[in-house]
């Protein structure tokens, strides 16, 4: 969960190629990376090859076991489970990625400004961060989703909102550290603007950890959307998501438990891969951790 993503201290920025090479030399990281690449390929190109629609219902063919026709069988409304896993993965991965981007963007902007400018700006911005940290994330999301409805864009933004404060805190500390660094001072002496200083000089130093947090954040966002779906507040049908597939499976838990297995498995594998990759990135970027 976002709040417990560990604050990382910074490390010297490795050259990009070496950096990727070191990640990939971590065996677990490599496996996780491969799994994620495969998943992305599946959800991006998979739908083009599917012969079944993920939303085509057939009440006469419900709860079918796996067959050559339906690789993972059919669900409670006779829809092809494999097609739903592929299309649902598209939605779940998108929610995860975009929520993370929202969190990353707001977190870096707010945390960065607070750390860079200091003084009153810092004080005000950090109180806002504290406020968001003090409302348990799930309550916050719950309140927002019940208030603004469950349109996918709303869900992406709220899940991202559940995650930005942690990012802001971490980025804030780093900006504070680097704003007095020699190369920043030097650039400032040459007359660079604030924005340029922040974006061109400090941000690249902070980015590695932001990337670690962001990687873990994708997994967290996917899990959070699934949790929201359990409470009926996640992505809504007819659109399939792994979260709402898992929710639909609840009613059939004693009758057809396998319906809960597939989306559960895909969520677990995906989130696991993001977490392992995030941890591998952290080991590379900051062995102390």
């Amino acid at each position, binding site marked *: 969960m976002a709040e417990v993503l560990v604050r990382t201290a910074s490390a010297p920025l490795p050259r990009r190629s070496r950096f990727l090479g070191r990640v990939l030399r971590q065996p677990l990281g490599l496996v996780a990376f491969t799994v994620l690449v495969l998943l992305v390929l599946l959800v991006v190109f998979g739908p083009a090859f599917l012969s079944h629609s993920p939303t*085509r219902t057939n009440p006469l063919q419900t709860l079918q076991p796996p067959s050559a026709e339906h690789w993972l069988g059919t669900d409670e409304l006779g829809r092809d489970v494999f097609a739903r896993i592929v299309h649902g993965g598209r939605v779940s991965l998108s929610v995860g990625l975009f929520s993370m981007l929202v969190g990353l963007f707001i977190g870096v902007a707010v945390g960065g400004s607070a750390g860079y400018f200091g003084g009153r700006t810092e004080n005000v911005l950090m109180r806002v961060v504290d406020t968001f940290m003090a409302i348990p994330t799930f309550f916050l999301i719950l309140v927002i989703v019940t208030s603004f409805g469950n349109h996918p864009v709303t869900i992406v933004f709220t899940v991202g909102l559940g995650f930005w404060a942690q990012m802001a805190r971490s980025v804030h500390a780093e900006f504070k550290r680097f704003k007095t660094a020699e190369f920043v001072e030097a650039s400032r002496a040459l007359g660079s603007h604030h924005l340029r200083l922040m974006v061109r000089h400090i941000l690249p130093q902070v980015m590695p950890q932001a990337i670690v947090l962001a990687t873990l954040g994708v997994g967290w966002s996917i899990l959070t959307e699934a949790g929201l779906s359990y409470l009926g*507040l996640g992505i*809504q*049908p007819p659109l399939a998501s792994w979260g709402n597939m898992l929710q639909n499976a609840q009613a059939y*838990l*004693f*009758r057809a438990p396998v319906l809960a297995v597939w989306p559960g498995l895909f969520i677990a594998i995906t989130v696991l891969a993001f977490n392992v990759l995030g941890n591998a990135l952290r080991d590379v970027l900051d062995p102390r951790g």
Partner: protein
Amino acid sequence: MKVRGTLFRALVALLFALGAAVATAQDADTSAVLNLATNADPTLNPWTPGAVIESNLINTILFEQLTRYSPEDLTPSPMLATSWQAEEGGLAWVFELRQGVVWSDGDPFDAADVAFTFNDVVLNPDLGAQSASQFSAIDRVEVIDDHTVRFVLNEPFSALPYYLASFAGIIPVHVLGEAENPLQVASFNKGIPVTTGPYKVAEFVPGSFVRLVPNELYWAGEPKLAGMVFRIIPDLNTQVAEAMAGQLDVVTRLSPQNVRGIESTGALEVLRQSQNLFFFVAPNHDDERLADVRVRQAMTMAIDREAMIQAILDGYGEVASGPVAPMLGALFNGDVRQYPYDPEAAAALLDEAGWTVGPDGVRQKDGQRLSFYMPTGQFGDLVPATLLVQQYWQDVGIETDVQVMEWNAYIQDVVLGRNYEVTLAWWSMPPTADVAPYFSCDAAQTGNNIPNYCNEDLDRIMDEGRAALTLEEQADAYGRMQELLAEELAYIYLWWPDILTAKSVRLQGFPEITANAAFQHSFDWYVTAR
């Protein structure tokens, strides 16, 4: 021969009655405590706004009503009232009250309690009492003597004794009469209320359970169980898991998907009960495309309701031909126009109405497309049912834009705001054929007539039904009403679902007909010894 047959039957009946009495006396486990479940903290006052599904059954045990449903045919039978009759051509009803009834705190029950319940609570518009609108035909309740009351009506209301049996518990004037708001007395609603039922509250642990013990002052004698516990378990799967682990004796509103799992334990059996409840797709009659009856008929024929009942209810339900369920016996008329699944006929009818398939596969006429906004709410089976209907309609060239909304938002926007073109929902009604609140012109636009359907012929027939005092007259009026409704399809009727209740095989004396009737007869419940 005839006499002998009758005599024989009487003898058999007598033997059975004796047998039952003996069995009760010998085999009843009087130390048994029954475990039941509810999904949230109940509010122990049947009239408090918001006291709904989580409170209904426990309140039915605690708060007795003037009448209750007969377990045989659901006609009103005596409870706190022993007899009643209409006067002044149906504009007043006199109820004789039962003698010797005392509240659980020892105070006697009398006419003042009934007058208080209706005059000061139900009919007080400032209190917003739960389901008060069902009693809008009542003008006031007059106390004739300690054990006689007269209900004075604004208009004829032949279904009054039925409605008085439907979550209309009597509350004590000597406890609540002085309260600023008798519906918001916390020590009563969320503590130990004063009641007349066969069991009374001994302990209420919020969020956990409500424990009932026998009411030793009960007018019909001491009940046959040592007590009952209503456990508060919000997650329905957890309720089923508890039942399968042997920790619950009764599970109400069981989902059809869990029937096999429950029955596999051998300790529980599943009852198929009914309720006057129908699922429907409401077409918005303000939309001129839907105002054409042929379109509504085609939309009905395009849906394979049998298959939907199999898929969603696992077969536990029946295709609905109208709003009035077959459980109403004499008042039910099944001999009305039917719309069996026939996509070809549906397509032909749409063609005939001028809606022809356009280049995008969606039917169109004069530049308009047969495409509907179909919002639905997150509740029970509404979402899967909506998705199946969407598919059936797509197959005949009708497009729908399905939007799933959170329940609060759905009520606000769709039910109250009427912001929809078609929507799938249900009505749950007292067991009477008086469906005017859902169909009359009065109820269109603002009331519960969600489709905004208005037909003066229909209104006239429904008024006849309300004024009819004999069952024959009622059956005649309501029979014609059901014919008209099937012809007109004010709503697109889907099904009457079975209401599934799981109960311990050892629990006896539990009427099977409806859950409500079963709980109104909780005095008769007993558990056989192992």
